[in-house]
């Protein structure tokens, strides 16, 4: 290390490093990743097609007011459509997709680069991706709208706004995930981070109610008012600039562009702050927490958490105990658990409450509101939650990475392995599911439906466990060895979405009989749902572990190779 250091001191770098280098590096890494990996290319093509589909749909949606010449919809389309897009860019990476860390900031820690160069470079590299390009394609619809309504000047400002808007989206996604990663990494504030994430998700609820309520009332004046307000926030400013010019407010359009630029600046500044701590943190995560202290009890006693105290001190028990510890101690797994808890509670409440609340025109009591909800709707949303909870296990071996070698060397039978993993995960998730059922029953004011809810949840969760056990054995992929819980390998984002989608659809399909029963059996089902759902879920999970365990026995080394990160 000493030699390069003296060299840089002696010889000034001949050429400055520009964002161009980062973009080329990213393209090169992407290209190398495809080499000799047919399925990766196929996944990538799939991602491009999906992006195109989204882009074309979005384009025509956003260009519709312009093409139809309906100027009164223009502002609303721009403000709400663009605002939703921005919100999606902020929230979706946190909840579902993760961030593409093809260029891991920690890799640049030793290079003599200024923070400014690094941030602009990584930012430029982040722009080279399918989601960014398809978003860009979609929002050009706004340029068409602005141009059709206001001629060339409006189109020009619209184009500028749209370009800045895409930059804003990417900057926001990076800044937010980076900040959250830093927070979740430090154990001291992990609980705070959990609460924050919960609050963010909770904001979705009222917002949805507001929007749906507004749409339902079809009060154009009020809706336009909301659109105007949104248009002046960073969420709507870049998208509405063109429309402002088209409406003759040239100054307002310019001001909105300025707002966007300022927002991008602030976000990049925030990102660069957390980036620095990410770089330092990755190089030496150090013994930051002091876990030293008197050792209580013997080794075996220490391994088993109190919640697993009932387990036998054998192979199965050891696997359960280790998995239990990992779901809490591994930041990546913990982030997944928190997501399940938050989304699991809020989505069904919103679906069942939000949908019916509209009909009663605002301030009606909960009791009346439930008129629209039904055991079928409840069962459906419970199936969704159960499936969502279990999809966390779709890449359960990827969490372990090369550490899984220990189990291969010890020759753990596949069925024992999968059953233990299901039990350990369930120790966390079943209480969460129970809470979901109780909260929903209370909010809806229907304690009598508790059985239907719990039954649907357990059945869907059990089916999900079975499907995801299979997916995790056959479709495992490696996760990068960074401490960022949102980091993904290049191309893995597509794999992750695809596997998650497949396993969610399959799990939901497997749980459909419960929904059908809810629809057909009427009141009898209120009593039967819980025992039937429990038996159904348990049976499915056992069958899944039986079949997938067999597959695991046959391909242990292949699985290990699949989850071992390439260096």
């Amino acid at each position, binding site marked *: 290390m000493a030699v390069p250091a003296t060299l840089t001191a002696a010889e000034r770098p001949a050429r400055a490093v520009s964002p161009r280098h980062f973009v080329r590096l990213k393209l090169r890494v992407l290209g190398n990743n495809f080499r000799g990996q047919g399925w990766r290319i196929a996944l990538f093509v799939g991602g491009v097609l999906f992006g195109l589909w989204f882009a074309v749909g979005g384009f025509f949606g956003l260009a519709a007011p312009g093409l139809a010449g309906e100027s009164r919809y223009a502002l609303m389309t721009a403000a709400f459509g663009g605002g939703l897009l921005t919100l999606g860019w902020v929230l979706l990476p946190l909840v579902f997709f993760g961030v593409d860390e093809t260029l891991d900031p920690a890799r640049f820690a030793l290079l003599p680069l200024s923070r400014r160069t690094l941030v602009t470079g990584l930012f430029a590299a982040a722009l080279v991706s399918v989601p960014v390009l398809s978003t860009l394609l979609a929002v050009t619809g706004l340029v068409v709208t602005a141009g059709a309504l206001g001629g060339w000047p409006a189109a020009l400002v619209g184009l500028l706004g749209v370009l800045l808007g895409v930059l804003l989206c990417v900057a926001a996604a990076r800044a937010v995930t980076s900040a959250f990663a830093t927070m979740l990494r430090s154990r001291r504030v992990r609980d705070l981070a959990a609460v924050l994430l919960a609050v963010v998700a909770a904001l979705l609820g009222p917002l949805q109610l507001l929007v749906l309520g507004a749409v339902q009332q079809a009060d154009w004046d009020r809706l336009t008012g909301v659109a105007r307000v949104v248009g002046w926030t960073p969420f709507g400013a870049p998208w509405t600039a063109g429309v402002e010019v088209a409406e003759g407010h040239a100054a307002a359009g310019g001001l909105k562009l300025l707002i966007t630029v300022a927002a991008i600046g602030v976000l990049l500044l925030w990102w660069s702050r957390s980036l620095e701590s990410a770089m330092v943190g990755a190089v030496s995560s150090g013994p930051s927490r002091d*876990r*030293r202290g008197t050792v209580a009890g013997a080794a075996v006693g220490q391994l088993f958490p109190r919640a697993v105290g009932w387990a036998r001190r054998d192979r199965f028990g*050891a696997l359960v105990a280790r998995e239990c510890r990992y779901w809490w101690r591994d930041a990546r797994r913990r982030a997944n658990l928190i997501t399940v808890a938050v989304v699991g509670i809020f989505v069904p409440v919103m679906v069942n409450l939000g949908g019916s609340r509209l009909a009663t025109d605002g301030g009606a009591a909960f009791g009346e509101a439930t008129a629209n909800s039904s055991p079928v709707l409840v069962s459906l949303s419970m199936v969704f939650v159960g499936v969502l909870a279990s999809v966390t296990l779709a890449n359960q071996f990827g969490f372990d990475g090369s550490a899984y*070698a220990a189990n291969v*060397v010890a020759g753990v039978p596949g069925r024992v392995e999968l059953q233990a993993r299901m039990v350990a995960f369930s120790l966390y998730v079943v209480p969460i599911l129970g809470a979901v059922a109780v909260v929903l029953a209370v909010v809806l004011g229907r304690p009598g439906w508790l059985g239907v809810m719990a039954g649907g949840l357990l059945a869907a969760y059990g089916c999900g466990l079975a499907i995801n056990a299979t997916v995790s054995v056959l479709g495992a992929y490696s996760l990068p060895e960074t401490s960022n819980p949102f980091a993904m390998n290049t191309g893995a984002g597509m794999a992750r979405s695809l596997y998650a989608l497949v396993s969610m659809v399959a799990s939901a399909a497997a749980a459909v009989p419960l929904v059908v029963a809810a629809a057909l059996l009427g009141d009898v089902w209120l009593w039967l749902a819980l025992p039937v759902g429990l038996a159904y879920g348990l049976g499915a999970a056992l069958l899944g572990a039986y079949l997938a365990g067999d597959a695991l026995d046959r391909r242990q080394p292949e699985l290990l190779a699949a989850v*071992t990160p390439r260096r």
Partner: protein
Amino acid sequence: MTDQHPALSLRGLAKRFDTKVAVAGVDLDVPTGSFYGLLGPNGAGKTTTLSMAVGLLRPDAGQARVLGHDVWADPVGAKGLLGVMPDGVRLFDRLSGAELLAYHGLLRGMDPAVVDQRAAELLDVLALSDAGRTLVVDYSAGMKKKIGLACALLHGPRLLVLDEPFEAVDPVSAALIRDILHRYVVGGGTVIFSSHVMEVVERLCSHVAILADGRIKRVGTLAEVRGERSLEEVFVEVVGGRTATGEELSWLSRRR
């Protein structure tokens, strides 16, 4: 009866990754009770060979037998006799040292009381008791090697397979590891380990094999392989290394 078999016997093991041949047919017999050194430069295929020998990597061709048990046909029989410390593989490092040992012991189907007693002893001997409840992820590189060795030793295997056990280990820990391995062999165990540190191999091993470009180039007892020369001389000659002439890299010199 298993004593008639060599501790480890490899026949025609081969593996290719994409177009690159990593191991091109390795035959090796590790006699019971031997201290076997597998030498080779970086990228020679040492890790690949050992991974295939213990069942971590499926070979394209060939066989691996541990005391007569085929690793791929009878994994349960073979893996029970094996203690393995892979290199470049993470441990379940979000456990503390004691928790990790307990996990490994129970995974091997050991009696909990025996696990407790042996874990305490191993932690003590390897000077890891002071770490207390520190997670293995926060251990230093040398401590990680030591806890890895403890995990491999815990169930009292007949054959120890160690990949680079002395890499990134300070002299004090290295001496300790050498000591423990020596005692293990004296007590009737068999060790095969990979390394590129000649000094350690010369000091410890009864048998040596030199691996380069995925093939065994020299094999035999230490005396047979070394002959009259030093092991390092033989190694460099076999591997075909080059020495710097002094013409290239002239810019490294500050005196021009």
